[in-house]
């Protein structure tokens, strides 16, 4: 059974149908965290976040406090919030921007205060039309309420927040590509080094880029203290986290659970959470952290939901998305579709990713659709090896950004775990599940 005693840190208002309105927000403790933060020194606000050891919730899991401290030495120019959630089967930021936009904005103001920034941009995925409307309305309400603009709540702190729509490009979730899009260009990731926009970011100035969920945790952390947050979870994975559970489960959805205290099995089978697998089927594999992550077999179901725990077993908790594949699922088809996604979304700058993704997709397509050859299976592994040499985890990189080394994960996992299924497709001359 799942351990569900932990407080709801970011999803506490979701039960209310009007959770996105200012009145509901104010009735449920809204802007108290900000009011408290404004009575503290900016450095003290930052050190609370440091103490919480809040790991970034975007996918890389970099500690938010450390990201900020890289900047505290020099004045920061901009705060950019990454709401371009596009990793397949990840829908937790979608939930946060539609259901609790004020909580996000309060978090943004707290972060901006800690960093002493006067302009923050919230970059939202263009497809989140309702989310864009709600966040814009919440920004308007916040200005009127005195939580944004000049001299916030009578303090000396002033901040503008601008809501910026994306336009449909997975790659813009990569922080330097997002900055390019914010500058009005094609979303091409920038060449590294510098590795962090902290050095050269928006308009060439020091910039912090943080994820929507990361920001949404800040009001609670300031209200309750970093130590209270760090007391939840375990090891480096502190606090709670939003998990987006999808695929062959009875009750897909976004669930906030305490890190480490719960396992994949808890999340998938608990009646209050995933509610088990459709038709009580057996689990064939799970994709633990977005489709960029290597797959796990059912033997990993009792692994705790923690960043290091998952990393030690050769995958990642990534974007907090978990996809369940059951024994009615064709794994070849699943892996082919993921490859097709990467092939469509490769920005085209780097040869291994641009050419490799399309080549892998075509080979996968012919195996799934009956035109495959036995030697295609090893060809696929060779192509994967050319994109991420050695096929290790974390992967070696031959490209500007991590989209490239994300391509082999699904194909490599599927061949390693279910080679027989590939062979059966080739020998039958069609999909085994048709």
């Amino acid at each position, binding site marked *: 059974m799942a351990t569900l005693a932990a407080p709801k840190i970011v999803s506490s208002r979701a039960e209310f149908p009007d959770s996105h309105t200012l009145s509901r927000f104010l009735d449920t403790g809204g802007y108290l965290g900000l009011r408290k933060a404004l009575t503290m020194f900016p450095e003290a606000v930052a050190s609370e976040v440091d103490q919480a050891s809040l790991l970034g919730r975007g996918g890389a899991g970099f500690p938010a406090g450390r990201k900020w401290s890289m900047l505290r030495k020099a004045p920061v120019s901009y705060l950019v919030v990454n709401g371009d959630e*596009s*990793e*397949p*089967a*990840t*829908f937790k*930021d*979608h939930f946060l921007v539609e259901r609790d936009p004020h909580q996000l904005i309060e978090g943004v103001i707290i972060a901006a205060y800690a960093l*002493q920034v*006067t*302009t923050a941009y919230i970059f939202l995925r*263009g*497809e*989140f*039309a*309702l989310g*864009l*409307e709600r966040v*814009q*309305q919440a*920004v*308007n309400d916040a*200005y*009127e309420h005195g939580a944004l*603009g*000049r001299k916030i709540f009578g303090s*000396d702190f*002033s*901040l*503008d927040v*601008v*809501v*910026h*729509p994306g*336009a*449909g*490009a*997975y790659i813009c979730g990569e922080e330097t590509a997002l900055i390019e*899009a914010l*500058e*009005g*260009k094609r*979303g091409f990731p920038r060449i590294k080094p510098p590795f962090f926009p902290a050095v050269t970011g928006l*308009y060439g100035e020091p910039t912090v880029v943080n994820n929507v969920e990361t920001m949404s945790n800040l009001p609670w952390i300031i209200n309750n203290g970093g130590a209270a947050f760090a007391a939840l979870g375990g090891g480096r994975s502190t606090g709670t986290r939003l998990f*987006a559970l*999808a*695929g*062959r489960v009875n009750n*897909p*959805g976004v669930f906030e659970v305490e890190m480490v205290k719960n396992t994949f099995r808890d999340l998938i089978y608990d009646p209050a959470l995933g509610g088990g697998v459709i038709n009580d089927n057996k689990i064939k594999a799970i994709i633990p952290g977005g*489709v960029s992550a290597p797959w796990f077999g059912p033997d990993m179901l009792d692994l705790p939901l923690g960043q290091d725990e998952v990393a030690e077993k050769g995958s990642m908790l990534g974007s907090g998305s978990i*996809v369940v594949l059951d024994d009615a*699922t064709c794994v070849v*088809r*699943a892996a082919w*579709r*993921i490859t097709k*996604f990467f092939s*469509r979304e490769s*920005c085209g700058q780097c040869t291994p990713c641009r050419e490799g993704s399309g080549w892998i997709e075509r080979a996968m397509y012919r195996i799934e659709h009956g035109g495959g050859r036995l030697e295609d299976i090893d060809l696929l592994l060779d192509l994967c090896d050319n994109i991420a040499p050695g096929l290790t985890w974390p992967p070696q990189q031959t490209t500007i950004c991590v989209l490239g080394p994300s391509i082999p994960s699904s194909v490599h996992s599927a061949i390693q775990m279910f080679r027989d299924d590939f062979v059966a497709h080739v020998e039958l001359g069609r999909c085994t599940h048709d």
Partner: protein
Amino acid sequence: MSHFRIDIRQRAEEVLALYPRPRSAMLPLLHLAQEQDGYVSDAGIAEVAAMTLTTPADVRGTALFYDMFHLEPVGQYVVGICTNIACLLAGGDELLGHAETSLGCSVGSTSNDGLFTLEETECLAGCDFAPCVQVNHRYVRTTTPDAFDALVAQLRAGTLDHEVPNHGTLIRVRRTGGLHAPRAEVASERAAAHEQREARAAETK
């Protein structure tokens, strides 16, 4: 003479004023151009280029990178159906095939009556109601072929027009007021406050 309608033009000027560099308004302005014309037309491109101080070629090149911008005319309703991993496992491919028949157009094309354009999309982050369907930027919680046909009938009858937006939504909720904290002003204010603190510190010594 502006190609943009008066309300779109006003919104575009508001957006432009939010950024230190005009080019940053590129994506929102392209959304507005599409909102007005249904797609990013040549006239829309010219207008965006003039406002962002770039060239039409540059605007077109940028727009082509982003999946949401259509550079060809589309139907009155753009129907997007996701077939990515979570939707694949919930019958997204089957729903897409069904949609081709009920809408009378194949993926990537527009029906003869000009009502529908059908698209196969990548993950729309609606995996809890897979397979995920969008009509003109609005999520529709439709998962079965029958429910999809009911939706199509409603769209044809025009009964959903108050719910399903036009080809964009930026005009629906406008920002009230521009920037309130101009950076230069705030910076000089902060510098003054800092000096005062320094002066007080020096006095107490």
